[in-house]
């Protein structure tokens, strides 16, 4: 998995790292059980304070995306994060509303939106389509 760090961004570095892991998992660029670089390694390659990497990993672990195993390293979690069906539905509705708001302001038609979702979905990995097509 490829990490980057952009200090001109308005997003703090630890959040950039978290976002990159989230995106990679969603797009199946990393698989469950895959190992991530250690805090030291990542700190060295990105030239950032190790505490910044540690903070990103702690937060990701809290969200259930990664597991840290003492002495072994940091791994992408196999199971999907624990969340009730109701919470999941609410989060999906909120995210959809944000996306649709943006689309309305772009001045595109509902059909174009549906086509865009269809088209882009192939690049992502959804629950229940294990073994199905997953783009990188």
């Amino acid at each position, binding site marked *: 998995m490829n990490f980057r760090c952009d200090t001109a961004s*308005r997003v*703090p*570095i630890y959040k950039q790292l978290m976002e990159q892991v989230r995106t990679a998992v969603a797009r199946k660029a990393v698989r469950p059980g895959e190992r991530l670089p250690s805090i030291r390694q990542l*700190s060295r390659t990105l*030239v950032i304070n190790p505490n*910044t990497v540690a903070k990103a990993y702690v937060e990701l672990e809290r969200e259930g995306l990664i597991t840290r195993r003492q002495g072994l390293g940091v791994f992408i979690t196999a199971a999907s994060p624990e969340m009730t069906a109701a919470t999941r539905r609410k989060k999906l509705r909120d995210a959809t509303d944000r996306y649709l708001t943006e689309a309305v302001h772009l001045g595109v038609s509902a059909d174009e939106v549906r086509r865009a979702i269809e088209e882009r979905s192939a690049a992502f990995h959804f629950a229940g389509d294990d073994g199905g097509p997953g783009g990188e």
Partner: protein
Amino acid sequence: MNDADAIVTRRLTKHFDGKRVVDSLDLNIKAGSVYGFLGRNGAGKSTTIKMLTGMLRPDAGEAYLLGEPVATLRPETRRRICYLAEAHPLYGWMTVGEAVRFTRAFYPATDGHPGWNGRLCEQILDHFELPRRRKIRRLSRGQMAQVSLALGVAPEPELLILDDPTLGLDTVVRRDFLESLIQIIHRAGRTILFSSHMLGDVERVADRIGLMADGVLRVDCPTEVFRESVKRVLVDFAGVPAEDPDVPRLVSWRHVGPTLELVLVGYDDAQRAAVEALGPRSVEVVDLNLEEAFIAYTRPARSLPAFDFRPVKKSIPHPEPAPTDGPSFTDQGAA
């Protein structure tokens, strides 16, 4: 004072020509942390560093390094501290090798101390491919910084005080320097105070930042807390934007056309209510990057420069300067 603090100052104060350059500075820098010390030129950073290292005597207040008053630092304690002065002053007539032998002589091995780590020094010089027989004055500015880093790190100090160590270095050399600094940070327990104008560098390496303006420490908190707390709020008005807005924790304000641009610490309900009370047409909140947040904190209040080549019809309203005693932003309780 706490044993866990590597640097402590109490009401540290210095005047130059009747002007208060450092004003009752209270600083607590935890052992093992990396502290980025920010401020514009003349804000009091270098003066503070010089008082910390005993190069300048404070007019009032005290400073402690590794638990000892700076004024009476014992030699044993002094050797646990590395200070890289601005612009890396070294003796130009020495060769790199001579500079190493000269500096090494100040760090003999004693009971409690292994002394000079010659292997580490050589590793750093090798890493930067510094010719040992080259005269210091023939080195580039970047190479001087590298020699100075090697000499500073070889005694394996617990506390490093670096006064703008990457000043004037090109991008590649700066990155090399930062990489070395990260390696030093990896050795647990080291405390680093470094001043810099390169905010991207500071964000990469600092756990905490302190921001000085006009001799006062205005910000003192974890780097990402500062980044995430300072917000720019764009308030649009149908008519003339409000003047001198009364909003809690206001850092600065200015007019950009019909928009009142506020920089605030946080954006809670009280602040939201205060902004709504101004009667705006619309309000937009945006995040800032470290550089933008720094500028918001340190720039004197004024309207955007009007470089307009059309004939001037009416002058742009100039707001009064924002209060210089705006919100200090520290999480150590000191105000």
